Each structure stands twice: as structure tokens, then as C-alpha cells.
């Protein structure tokens, strides 16, 4: 697989949220608005790229039996970095994302890429894979957040677009499931065509 494919596969073909169904908890939990979705996506991308890099660097040193705990520790260290930096410089976003920042540790997407890709490939491809998948994740979260914000609050990124009676349910938890269900169906349609 060439690097271009490696970079772009995360958007539609192997989109982590819409196709692989990984990392659904943050995808549903934080996407009450497009900006929250984007913030979460970028935080996850950073963790994903850095953990892929470190795993690819030291993969030959990790004994096979303890590889999963080692990967989790590597990921947890980068999550702590994100947590502290965000708390210091972006307190608003930190409050909005709340519990889901420390929970990046247990995002199956990050561990999944470390195990399925970075532990088997060289540093360059692992970096590209982490960045591509992270961007796909950010794209999915921003899209889901945008749809929910538009239908529930009539705005995208805080800019008002719709007036009148809105479907408040889309900002609330039930709407998250329903919006994601339809987006998965649409992605399936694209991938078959």
C-alpha cells in the first residue's frame, strides 16, 4: 500500500467511527457541537500519532507477552500530557470534554492502531497511519457534531443558520445515537458504490 492510500484510508474507506465502529464513546459523548467534536478529534490524533511513533520505535524491545500493557502505558503517558496541556491552555474545551479526555486511554481506536499497525510496520508508515486515522476520526466527530448542532441548535461552529422550531433531542443523548445511525448508513452506501 502506498503512503497516499495509507493517509487517506481513514476518511471514508476505513473511517474509524463510521466503518470500523471504534471509539464510539467519545464520538457520541462529546459531539454536542462541531467545535467539541473537532477538539476531541485533534486531541485523539495527537495521542494516536505519538503512541504509534513510540510503539514503532520500541516494538522490537517489547516482549510479546506484555505488549498490550506496555502499549496502554505508552498511550496513558501521552493522554496525561494532553490532559495537563489542555487544562492549562484551553480550560473551556477541557471542561466541555470533561471525563472523555482521560478516557482517550481506553479508546479502542488508539490501542487498535498500536496493535494492528504500528507494532508491525516501520516508523514512517506508522506515523502516516496514525495521522490519517486521527484525521478520519476528527472528520467523523466534526461531522457528527456539526449535524447534531445544526439540527438541535440551528448552528454550525456557533454560527446561527436555522431559526424557528428545532429538534432539541439531537443535542441530547438520544439524538447522538440516531444521527450516528444515519451517518453509518450513508457511509455504507458510499463504500459500496
Amino acid at each position, binding site marked *: 500500500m502506498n503512503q497516499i492510500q495509507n493517509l487517506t484510508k481513514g476518511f471514508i474507506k476505513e473511517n474509524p467511527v463510521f466503518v470500523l465502529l471504534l471509539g464510539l464513546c467519545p464520538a457520541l459523548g462529546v459531539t454536542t457541537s462541531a467545535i467539541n467534536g473537532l477538539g476531541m478529534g485533534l486531541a485523539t490524533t495527537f495521542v494516536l500519532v505519538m503512541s504509534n511513533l513510540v510503539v514503532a520505535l520500541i516494538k522490537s524491545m517489547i516482549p510479546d507477552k506484555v505488549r498490550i500493557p506496555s502499549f496502554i502505558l505508552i498511550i496513558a503517558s501521552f493522554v496525561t500530557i494532553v490532559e495537563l496541556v489542555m487544562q492549562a491552555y484551553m480550560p473551556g474545551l477541557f471542561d466541555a470534554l470533561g471525563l472523555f479526555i482521560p478516557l482517550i486511554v*481506553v479508546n479502542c481506536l488508539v490501542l487498535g492502531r498500536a496493535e494492528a499497525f504500528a507494532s508491525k510496520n516501520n516508523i514512517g508508515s506508522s506515523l502516516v497511519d496514525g495521522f490519517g486515522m486521527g484525521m478520519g476520526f476528527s472528520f467523523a466527530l466534526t461531522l457528527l457534531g456539526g449535524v447534531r448542532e445544526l439540527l438541535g441548535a440551528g448552528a454550525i461552529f456557533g454560527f446561527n443558520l436555522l431559526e424557528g422550531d428545532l429538534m432539541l433531542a439531537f443535542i441530547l443523548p438520544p*439524538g447522538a445515537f440516531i444521527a450516528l*445511525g444515519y451517518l453509518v448508513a450513508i457511509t455504507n452506501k458510499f463504500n459500496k458504490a
Partner: protein
Amino acid sequence: MEYFVIIIGSIFVSNIVLAQFLGICPFVGVSSKVSTSVGMGGAVLFVMTLATMVTWVLQYYVLNPFGLGFMQTIVFILVVASLVQMVEIILKKVSPSLYSALGVFLPLITTNCAVLGVAILTIQKDFSLLEGVVYAVANAIGFTLAIVLFAGIREHLDLMEVPKGMKGVPIALVVAGILALSFFGFTGLV
């Protein structure tokens, strides 16, 4: 009374899966049959209660006195991961029947964010140890309730005529949305 509020609040009003979005991966992944989802619920109950107890003790007797609060995420995930391993080994020796019932679900629980989430929430909400345990048990029951209900609906869904594009996961997610909507009726109960 406080405990009663915690129990009703975590099972119905802010259900861990349908209102707080924790543990969605097993909720979608292991919910095609009622029997397997009951097993998953049992395993979560076991690990969640133990993990909350251990992390509470660590937070108040190790992390706080030594000013290591920033290590919370790393320490907690290590506790959860090693606890899952330990439970697996002990169950295998002590109760092979329980192990064969829960065994397949145990490794999946390490990356179940509900377990880590409840451990962190217990600290954030300033619960005492007993309140924390009650909170963990109630949340595990809430998780089991949601996943078993969902599995029951999905078993029926397999026999329904669903539009082609919506088959499988999409319709399941829409159903989960409607389930969440029905749980919304409990808002304001406590």
C-alpha cells in the same frame, strides 16, 4: 436515603450507557444475543466494583498524600488492566464454572471505558468508599439493564424487514436512540 438516590440516579436517570455514553463498544459489539449480554453484564459488575474499591484506596492513601494527582490516569488504567488479569487467573483456579461463563468477556473489559470512567467519576464526585462501591454496583446494574434490553430488541430486529441500507449497525443505533429517549422519561426522578 443518599444511597437510594445514588442507586436510582445511576440506573435510570443518568444511565451509564444511554445517557453518559460510557461502554458503548461492548454495548454495540456484544449485544446480538441476550445470553451473552447477561454474561458481559456480570463480568462488568465484578470488575467495576473491585476496580472502584482499589482505585479509591490508591487515590486517597497513595496519590493524594504524595501529591501525585496528575498520575491518576496512568495509575487507574494500570489497576484496571492488572485487576482484569488477576480476576481471570483467580477465577480459573477457584471457580471454573464461573470462569467459563465470564471468561471470554474479561479481556474485553480492559478497554471498556465504563470501568475506568466510573473509577474516575467516583473520585470526581467526592464519594466515600462505601458510596463509591454503591455507585459502582448501581452503574454496573444500569449497564446490564441497558445491554440486555438492547440485546432483546436486536434479537427481534433480525427477523424484521429493514430497508437495505439500514440493515445491521445503523438500525441498531437508531433503536438505541429510541431506547435512550425512553430512558429520558426518568429525568427529574431524583
